[in-house]
């Protein structure tokens, strides 16, 4: 038992408190000291990065060691709650497989042979290479693949260097189509966390969203609260998900036909005058065109396409009409499925508009933007050649802020519109997050320089020339968070709880050091990240010491239409100032101005459609090596329907690889035979089947869904990769 000395304890607290205001050393919170077992501990507020949701954490620190993470009760979003991953964050901090030192490649690319380097050696080498590439090929030849708020300082560096080519998978492999579709309709996207008023809702509609298996703490709290207050639930999913098991209506839809279902729902709402007539009359344009468009899309028409009974389609539409406007048609997150995803998002947005749910209690609530203060920077250089990823060009509606990852892969492979010579990958696993991994690796082979900045030896590490070990979220400052899309908007801090372990360094330090070597120091006009923090948050009237102490500062929100003030942005920031049921923008682009169902291709005989999702204890391909989480779920399973399994002669518990109809093959995975999935599908949880040998727990366990995605269907509007278009079968021994 560790003896506890008050004198020693107070000494530590005072020293840490003094440093919080002025230096980069670990800060301390005003949260009272607590207990861990029989031990007295300091508690420091920060926020979690086991996923991207922005949950508040209190870290218990004892003698320089983080002994426990728990929810921060003061945090406006999560109020003390934390999911399994959040509770397991110390497993990342103390993962023995962490990247510990900068590494420089010695062997051939892909062999994973490195020598240990000092930071000076690694950064000098990198700066030389970047200068040479700029001279020879122009700054645009460097592509940046960031993920998460930790990457923002590096993002500034890339812009200062002169490349516009930055792309994160959160757009073209995730929520891009959603935000484009809702922007076209309502004049703004949804952002993250998405503002769904689940706790006040009377009816929740999930289109493929598997809340419960997809866990974001505050969203689960709101979901469970809504259900316990009597909200009804419609779950549209080919699989009997956790949400489907809680649902009043489970609609096991034929994959890829959601637009037909959505059109049929609109048909019923309009034909039976169940839509919110005053709201639509006041706020929307294009209703007549919409009504004419959906007139023939009856539930009977949809039944033949979706394989859902017309009576059930009608019944669920009526339930929506009854519950309106307190209906959440959940816009989803990962929605790059079939290549028509922007149009499906449009259909969901139009349904939301018909129900009068946008800006209404129990529907989609309105964000309350918080404007950060500014730091004066030199002008970023203008790129003469423009972007290489197609954002704003061949993908006219793609976000230029988030970019199109697969567009950068394409450009690297083809050299069109110009050669890409270097990738800097920051905090993401490009082999697992971007489909068609074979192409991704081929692109990497063509590079002059491949840089990986990460905490763990992720899959692409073996292909890196330079590996820079980043400090974890518990050891670093990140740029402060401004979260407007919460009912109580808030500013939150990520601050170091302890000093970085090994030779790892925070992202801000790496970016600043590299900037110094590239002659770009002017873009980092601060000495320590808390000075940068102060410049951003103080204009909002926030005391930085209080922010360090409490972790987050909340502001009053204006979530519903009736709360809005005249100073707010227009309610519908569209060209017409109204909800665009009919999209003139899409018409001008030669696309369907009203969503239309297009035929989906069924799997060839003997093959099944590959669908995939998440598990509550894992995030992407980031947490599978975590000791506590790995113990709960070391591998995934392949869900196959009972009768399909009998036809394909596989049995529950068999361990078989899967292959797709183009020959791509996965590692072996255990088969789960169940009634809980349609006969034409197979389901895998994403994130498994990683091959990096450096991840000693996770390596080789389960099957990677991405490894079976040799095919994508690209959304022509925004470049998103439809990933549910691959057909697979088990390979018997």
């Amino acid at each position, binding site marked *: 038992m560790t*003896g506890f*000395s*008050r*004198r020693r304890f107070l000494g530590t607290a005072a020293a840490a408190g003094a440093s919080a205001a002025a230096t980069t050393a670990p800060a301390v919170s005003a949260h009272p000291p607590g*207990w*861990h*077992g*029989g031990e007295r501990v300091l508690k420091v507020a920060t926020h979690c990065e086991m996923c991207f949701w922005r949950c508040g954490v209190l870290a218990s620190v004892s003698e320089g060691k983080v002994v*426990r*993470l*728990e*929810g921060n009760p003061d945090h406006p979003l999560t109020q*003390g*709650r*934390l*999911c*399994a*991953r*959040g*509770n*397991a964050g*110390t497993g990342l901090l103390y993962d023995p497989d962490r990247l510990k030192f900068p590494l420089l490649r010695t062997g051939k690319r892909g062999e994973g042979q490195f020598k240990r380097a000092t930071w000076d050696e690694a950064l000098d080498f990198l700066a030389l290479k970047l200068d040479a590439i700029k001279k020879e090929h122009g700054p645009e030849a460097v592509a940046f693949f960031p993920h998460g708020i930790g990457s923002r300082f590096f993002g500034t560096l890339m812009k200062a260097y002169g490349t516009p080519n930055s792309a994160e998978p959160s757009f073209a492999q995730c929520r891009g189509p959603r935000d484009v579709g809702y922007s076209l309709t309502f004049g703004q996207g949804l952002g993250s966390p998405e503002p769904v008023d689940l706790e006040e809702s009377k009816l929740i509609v999930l289109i493929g969203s598997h*809340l*419960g*298996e997809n*866990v974001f*703490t505050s969203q*689960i*709290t709101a*979901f*469970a*609260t809504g*259900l*316990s207050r009597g909200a009804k639930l419609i779950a549209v999913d080919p699989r*009997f998900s*956790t949400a*489907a*098991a*809680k649902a009043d209506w*489970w609609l*096991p839809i034929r994959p890829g036909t959601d637009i037909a279902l959505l059109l049929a729902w609109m048909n019923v709402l309009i034909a039976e005058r169940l839509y919110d007539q005053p709201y639509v009359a006041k706020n929307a344009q294009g209703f007549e065109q919409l009504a004419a468009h959906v007139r023939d899309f009856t539930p009977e028409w949809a039944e033949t396409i979706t394989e859902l009974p017309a009576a059930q389609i009608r019944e669920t539409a009526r339930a929506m009409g009854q519950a309106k406007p307190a209906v959440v048609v959940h816009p989803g997150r990962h929605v790059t499925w079939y290549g028509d995803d922007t149009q499906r998002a449009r259909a969901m947005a139009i349904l939301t508009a018909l129900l009068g749910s946008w800006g209404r209690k129990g529907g989609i609530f309105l964000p309350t933007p918080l404007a950060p203060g500014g730091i004066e920077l030199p002008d970023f250089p203008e790129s003469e050649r423009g972007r290489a990823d197609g954002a704003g060009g061949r993908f006219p509606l793609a976000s230029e802020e988030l970019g199109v990852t697969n567009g950068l892969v394409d450009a690297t492979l083809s050299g069109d519109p110009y050669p890409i010579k270097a990738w800097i990958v920051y905090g993401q696993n490009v082999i697992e997050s971007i489909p068609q991994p074979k192409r991704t690796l081929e692109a990497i082979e063509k590079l002059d320089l491949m840089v990986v900045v990460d905490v763990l030896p992720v899959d692409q590490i073996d292909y890196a020339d330079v590996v820079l070990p980043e400090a974890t979220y518990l050891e670093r400052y990140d740029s402060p968070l401004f979260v407007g899309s919460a009912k109580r908007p808030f500013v939150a801090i990520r601050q170091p709880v302890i000093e970085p372990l090994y030779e790892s360094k925070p992202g801000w330090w790496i970016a600043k050091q590299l900037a110094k070597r590239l002659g770009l120091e002017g873009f980092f006009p601060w000495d320590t990240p808390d000075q940068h923090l102060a410049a951003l948050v103080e204009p909002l009237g926030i005391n930085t010491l209080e922010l360090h102490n409490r972790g987050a500062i909340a502001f009053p929100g204006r979530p519903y239409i009736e709360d809005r003030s005249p100073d707010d942005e227009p309610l519908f920031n569209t060209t017409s100032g109204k909800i665009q049921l009919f999209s003139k923008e899409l018409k001008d682009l030669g696309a369907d101005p009203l969503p239309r169902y297009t035929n989906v291709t069924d799997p060839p005989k003997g093959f099944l459609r590959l669908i995939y999702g998440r598990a*509550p*204890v894992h995030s992407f391909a980031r947490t599978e090596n975590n*000791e*506590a*989480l*790995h*113990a*709960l779920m070391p591998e995934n399973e392949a869900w196959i*329907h009972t009768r399909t399994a009998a036809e394909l002669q596989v049995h529950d518990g068999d361990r078989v690889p899967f292959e797709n109809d183009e020959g791509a093959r996965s590692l072996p995975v255990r088969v789960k035979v*169940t*009634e*809980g*999935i*349609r*006969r034409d599908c197979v389901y895998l949880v994403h994130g498994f089947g990683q091959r990096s040998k450096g991840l000693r727990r996770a390596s080789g366990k389960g099957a990677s869904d991405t490894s079976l995605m040799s095919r994508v269907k690209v959304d022509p509007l925004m470049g998103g990769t439809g990933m549910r278009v691959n057909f697979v079968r088990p390979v018997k021994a």
Partner: protein
Amino acid sequence: MSRYAMVTDLRKCVGCEACTVACNAEWSVPAGFARTHVRKTEIAGTFPNLTSGIHVAQCNQCDRPPCAEACPSGATSQGADGIVRVDKDLCIGCAFCVAACPYDARYINPATKKVDKCDFCLPRIARGEQPVCVTTCTAHAKYFGDLEDRGSEVFRLVYAEGARRIETASVAVGPNVYYLGKPESLALVATSFPPRAPRLPAAGEAWRMAVRPLVMLAVGATFLGQAVAFFTQLAKGENDFED
């Protein structure tokens, strides 16, 4: 007097396992073991008419705990508050209690070789806090309180909402962990994870009579050793007993 109880609302629970990980972290439970764990039932029925359920298991703090009966050393006992506790100093790691528990709620910690299990976070309760599974639960699905307190939420959930316990006609030892759920889902959970008949050591009483004095003796010796160390330290003038 208190009678502590836990109610889990399985209509809200999504099976996220935050409780398991938080509990493991709070009480330094080694990976692969748990004081509280979450299990899903198989999906029952025929497509598309299906049911499934989630079971959140922990020590039931039974009114008539078979574990205490099986314990030969007196390490496992029941407090006046109904909570079954383990005195680690008395535990000899024989695992008889593990076999006796109808709810599979106990494990032998491989590091300490002692038995461990949920005690409703006794030290937290003593500080006026809630058990850690309750405070972290993302779905706000867990309720902890005193069934003797008629104003408590658990009292309402048990006596007004009809939260039920998982027991069978043959294994009815008075569990104090209750569940709310959709009837068909709760029935599936109860049949999927039924309590099993306690396996008590065959010659239980005789064994106990023989072992208990030995254990007390062993503990006495340990205490004596500590006392000697204490006085030795005092004599050397080292004092690590600041408040």
